């Protein structure tokens, strides 16, 4: 948890800047988490360089966050994070990409990591963020006929009554 005197990610950042040019990403740091903010258009490029040139060959985590009415928030409504891991140096890097209403759409990371398959489907299921290039983007956790996106902040915790909409079986009928 201690902050190293020299930045272990300096080499990665210079490789990225060298290959993609300046201004593609901005960084922020909290504790030992180093975050890389990129725009949706350059996402796949950045991920590809990180995977193939910088040794981040392991996609450790992929998830989404809805920042609707987050205090002091000015940037986009949704953000998706990719936690990458370098298995040799145990470096971790978090790539964050913002996407906004309406019709939030991101390019899919499926061609890079097959492990992204279900995690992207889950984000689609929970937030309605579409991933172009994903081979099989369907609902994964909620039933097919469900229409809302339950992890969005404007969806109530207890739902809108969907959980009560089933026929009752009484002992006489069964």
């Amino acid at each position, binding site marked *: 948890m201690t902050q190293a005197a020299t930045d272990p990610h300096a080499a990665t950042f210079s490789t990225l800047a060298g290959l993609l040019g300046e201004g593609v990403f901005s960084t922020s740091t909290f504790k030992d988490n180093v975050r890389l903010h990129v725009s949706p258009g350059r996402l796949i490029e950045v991920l590809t360089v990180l995977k193939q040139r910088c040794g981040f060959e392991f996609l450790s985590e992929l998830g989404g966050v809805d920042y609707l009415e987050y205090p002091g928030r000015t940037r986009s409504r949704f953000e998706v*994070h990719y936690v990458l891991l370098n298995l040799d140096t145990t470096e971790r890097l978090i790539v964050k990409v913002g996407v906004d209403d309406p019709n939030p759409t991101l390019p899919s990371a499926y061609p890079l990591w097959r492990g992204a398959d279900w995690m992207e489907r889950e984000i689609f299921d929970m937030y309605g963020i579409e991933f172009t290039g994903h081979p099989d983007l369907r609902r994964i956790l909620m039933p097919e006929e469900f229409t809302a996106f339950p992890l969005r902040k404007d969806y109530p915790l207890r739902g809108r009554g969907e959980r009560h909409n089933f026929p009752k079986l009484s002992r006489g009928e069964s």
Partner: protein
Amino acid sequence: MPANLLDEPEIGEESKKQYLWTLNFGPQHPATHTTLRLVLDLDGERIVRATPYIGYLHSGFEKLGEHLNFNQYVTIVDRKNYISPPMNEVAWHNAVEKLLGIELTRRCQYIRVIIGELSRISDHLLCAGAAALDLGAFTAFLFAFNQRELIYDVYEEMSGYRFHPGYTRVGGVMQDFNDRVIERVRAVLRSLPKAIADMEKLLFRNRIFLDRMRGVGVLSKADAINFSCTGPLARASGVTYDLRKDEPYLAYRDFDFSVPYATEGDCYARFQIRMEEIVQSMGIVKQAIENLPGGPVNVPIAEKFPMPDKGTIYNSMEGLIQHFELIMPNRGYETPKEEIYAAIEGPSGELGYYLVTDGTQIAWRTRTRPPSFIHFQVFPMMIKDHLISDIVAVLGSLNIIAAELDR
């Protein structure tokens, strides 16, 4: 073995459909352990394609995390991987404490290591026992479950609840270990080696068991990395990453243990890794319980976020104020408006939390990195060209926990 029909371009879709059988497997099936569903396309008894359908136990864990505070949410994370609840608690509070910048006391770190490793043992015991049960070896399951009962006794003594202890708190644990807990832990350590020897004797020379596990469900190292596999599943395929060694958290630097790995990547290798990890975890628990440091178990209440114990609440003004500030809904300390990813090595792989806070004591977002969810997506690839009966062996070796899978 005939060529895979679905890959033949000259055969039309319609005739493929006529030739293949479709079989629905689950969601209520004993070998799925809980609630998984597979739709299988079969060529005779050979599986041409398996399509998993999940979500039959989706209960909104992550949404609940946005409505409960850091201490309340422990009861929910317990139920995520319900065969090793304390490990979930350790993972959750590891993330919270990292975000709040709380450094635990030595005693608390050791206690968390002990409960974490005990839960790893119980997880692997159930996984190995149930895998054997599904393959027809009932007795090994009984041996494994007897040891789990002893571990339940530890939980019960330390927290009062045998299944979901809900034992950790921000900055500490619910109450300190007493002598009876330590005695119970020693009882587990005493009886476990014999049970493991019994299980190994029953299974490692059991011809049926070996034939059904060896060479079945092979996962290569490249695939394991590409599919984001971690834990015993990846280590059986040659990925030696273990967060306890590579990114040490709690007090794991203090202990002498090794990380077993194999390169075969089949069901049998995974089973062996689990059995070996039980032995290693036993060693860690033994070292931790013999060298348990003294001193306070919770961080001082000046750190603001820890819940004071009952004695402090009733007997000191600071404790009372602290309790009031933490419990009353309209009060509360300010947390950083930040987000963090923190992970630990869970029984079935990297168990991480992506935690976002908005300045209150209730998280804005509690994303879990669920190992079961990530591991289950490998299943269709592993089971391809196997027979129906191999499903049971492969599922048993993957250790899919439905509550963690669906959350």
